[in-house]
C-alpha cells in the first residue's frame, strides 16, 4: 500500500517536473512566418544545448498586431527581443530619434534580414549603435558586390535604373557614385520619372534600358530597390534583348527572372549568425550595443546558367567552382 501511495505521489509531482520553465526566453517577431533565417536562428540555438525558449509571433505581413505584441513583450519581459526584416524591426524598435524609439526597459534587441540599418534610421552606425540593439544584415556590402562583379564581367560602364523616392535605392546610388571614382568605372544613372500623382512610371523601364544600351553600358545593376524589383522582369528582358547582363543585389531576380548573377548571403546563414549573436547576449558575454552589426563574411555567387548561355557570358572557372548554379539549360539545347 505504501508503495502504491509513493508511486501516486511521484506521478502527481511529475507535471511539475515537466512544466519547468526555460532558463531564458527569446521573443521572436516574424514578418511572414518562420522561413530560412528563422530556421537558421532556431537551429543555432538548439545546437548550443542551452535552455532557451523561443516565443514566436508572426505579423503575417501586417503591422496592426504591433501594439498587441509590444504590450506582450512588456508583460513577458523576455531576455532578448528578435525581429525579422526592416519593416517589422522599424515598427517594433522604432528609429534612432527619441520620438519613435520603443521602450522595453533593459531588454536588448537583435534584428536580422535588414539591408540598411543606418539608412533605415535604426542605429547611428554599424559599430557604435547608440542603442542596446545589434543585428545581422543580409546584403553583401556593395563594394564587395562590385569587386566580384568585375571578375564576372570586366565592366567599364555600369548602368542603374532606380526609384529616387526610395531611401534604400537612393543610398545605393550614392554609394555607387563613390565607388565609381575609386574603382574607375563610369556610372550611368537613370532615375525613374514620376507621374503627376507622384508615382514612379514603370512603363518607362524599357526605354531607360534602351538609353543605357545606347550609352554602351557593359552591365546593369539591380539594386535594393523595392519598386524596380517589383517590375524587374521588364528591365531584365529588355537588357537581354540588347545583350546586356544584369546583376542583382538579391537572389530572387536571378532565380525567377533571368538576371545573370548575384552575390548573396543565404537567409539560413544570416539566421545562424543572428543565433550566434543572441547566444553572446544571453550568456552575458557582451551587451547588444557592444556587438557590431554585420553580415556573414563569405558570400555565395548565384548564377543563372540559362541567362549566361543566352548572353554568352560565363563566370570564370575559379568562381564557377564555388557558385550555386541555377536554371541549368538541358544538354539537348
Amino acid at each position: 500500500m505504501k508503495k502504491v501511495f509513493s508511486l501516486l505521489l511521484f506521478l502527481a509531482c511529475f507535471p511539475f517536473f515537466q512544466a519547468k520553465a526555460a532558463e531564458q526566453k527569446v521573443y521572436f517577431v516574424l514578418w511572414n512566418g518562420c522561413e530560412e533565417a528563422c530556421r537558421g536562428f532556431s537551429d543555432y540555438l538548439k545546437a548550443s544545448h542551452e535552455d532557451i525558449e523561443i516565443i514566436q509571433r508572426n505579423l503575417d505581413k501586417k503591422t496592426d498586431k504591433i501594439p498587441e505584441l509590444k504590450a506582450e513583450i512588456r508583460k513577458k519581459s523576455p531576455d532578448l527581443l528578435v525581429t525579422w526584416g526592416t519593416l517589422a524591426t522599424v515598427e517594433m524598435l522604432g528609429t534612432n530619434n527619441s520620438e519613435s524609439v520603443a521602450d522595453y526597459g533593459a531588454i536588448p534587441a537583435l534584428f536580422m534580414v535588414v539591408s540598411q540599418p543606418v539608412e533605415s534610421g535604426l542605429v547611428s552606425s554599424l559599430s557604435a549603435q547608440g542603442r542596446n540593439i545589434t543585428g545581422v544584415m543580409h546584403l553583401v556590402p556593395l563594394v564587395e558586390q562590385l569587386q566580384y562583379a568585375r571578375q564576372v564581367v570586366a565592366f567599364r560602364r555600369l548602368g542603374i535604373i532606380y526609384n529616387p523616392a526610395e531611401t534604400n535605392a537612393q543610398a545605393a546610388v550614392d554609394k555607387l557614385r563613390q565607388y565609381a571614382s575609386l574603382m574607375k568605372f563610369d556610372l550611368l544613372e537613370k532615375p525613374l520619372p514620376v507621374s503627376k500623382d507622384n508615382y514612379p512610371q514603370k512603363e518607362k523601364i524599357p526605354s531607360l534600358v534602351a538609353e543605357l544600351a545606347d550609352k554602351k553600358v557593359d552591365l546593369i545593376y539591380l539594386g535594393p530597390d523595392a519598386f524596380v524589383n517589383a517590375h524587374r522582369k521588364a528591365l531584365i528582358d529588355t537588357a537581354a534583348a540588347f545583350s546586356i547582363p544584369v546583376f542583382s543585389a538579391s537572389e530572387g531576380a536571378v532565380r525567377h527572372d533571368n538576371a545573370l548573377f548575384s552575390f548573396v548571403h543565404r537567409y539560413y546563414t544570416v539566421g545562424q549568425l543572428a543565433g550566434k549573436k543572441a547566444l553572446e547576449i544571453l550568456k552575458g558575454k557582451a551587451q547588444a550595443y557592444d556587438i557590431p552589426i554585420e553580415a556573414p563574411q563569405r558570400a555565395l555567387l548565384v548564377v543563372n546558367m540559362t541567362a549566361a548561355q543566352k548572353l554568352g557570358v560565363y563566370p570564370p572557372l575559379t568562381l564557377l567552382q564555388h557558385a550555386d548554379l541555377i536554371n541549368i539549360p538541358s544538354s539537348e539545347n
Partner: protein
Amino acid sequence: MRSMSLSHTILASLFWCAVVFAFTGMNFMKYEEASHTLRESRIETALTDMHKALQVEMDKGEALPGLKTAEKILLNYTRSERDLLSAMIFSANTGKILFSTLVGQTGQSAPVSWRQKCVRSDTVFIEKEKDKETMGMPLLNAFSENTGCLVAQYTTESGEVVREKMIKTTFHYSVRLAAIGAGFCFFIYFFGFLVATTFQNKKIQLAIAFVLCQGLLLLALYFSFVSMFKAFDENIKQEMSTKTQQIAEQISARLGQAVQNGVPFDSITALETYLDQIRQKNKEILFILVTDKTGRVLYETGSAAEAFEADPYTGKISLREGYYNAAEPVNSANAAIGWVQIGVNERFVREKGF
C-alpha cells in the same frame, strides 16, 4: 715520385667511402622527402577539394550536421584516391562524428587529439601513426566560426614500399661508388709501384699518372652518379605519376562539370588562370594542355615546347627523355569531348636539389 704507401691507400679508400656514404645518404633523404611531399600534397589536394566542396554546400544554406550532400562528397573522394582509407567529419561542438565513409563510425566520439589540433583555419594538422597518417582541417561556416573538422586517414604503405626501394638503391650505389673509389686508390698504389720500378723518366711518369687519374676518376664518377640519379628518379616515378594522374582527373572533372552546367568547352573563362595556379603549386608540372577531341590545343599553361623534340630525319614530335606525360579524357554526358594533358619533369628533385 714516391709511390703511395699501403696505409695511405687504405686511409684514402676509407675517406672516399665515408664521402660516398654521406652523399648517397643525403641523396636518399632528399628523394625520400620528395616522395613523401608528393604523396602528402596529393592527399592534401584531395582534402582541400573536399573541404571547399563542403564549405560551398554550407554557404548554400545548411548547417553542418544537416548537410545532405556531405556523405556523397566524402565517398567520391575516397573512391578516387587510392591511399585514402576513410574520410569523416566531426562536430566542433560535440566532438561526435557526423559523417564517415566507414560503416558504424557515425555517432562515435572523435579522438581528443584531433579535437585539440583541428582549430586553426589556416593549417592542416597531421598525425602520424605506424602504418597510417591522419590529416585534418577545420570547416568554417560563412561567418568564420569553426563548426567541425574534416579528417582523412590514409595508408602509408605505398610510401613504405618506395622507401624500401630507395634504401636498396642507396645501399647498392653506396657500395658501387665506394668500390670504384677504393679500387681507384689501390690502382694508383699499384700504378705508382709499377711506375717507380719500371719508368726512369720522371716527367713521363707524372704526366701519365695525372692523365690516368683525372680521366678515370671523372668517367667513373660521371657514369655512376648518372645511373644513381636515374635509379632514384625511377623510385619516385610511381608517386609522381599517381599524383599527376590525380591532378589530371580533377581538372577533367571540373571541366566536365562546367560543360554539363552549360558552359561551352571552348569558352571557359579564365581557365588558364586556374591551370596556372595548379602549375605554380606543383613544381614538377612543366605544362598543362587542354585539347578538344581532335587534339587541337584550346588552353595552355607552362612551356610545353621544352618537353618535346622533333626527330631530325622523320620530323616526328615526341617527349624528350626525362619528361612524363599524363592524359585524362574530359567527359560530358558520358561522351569524351577533349583531353587534359599534363607534362611533368621527372628530374625535378635532382634539378631542384643539386
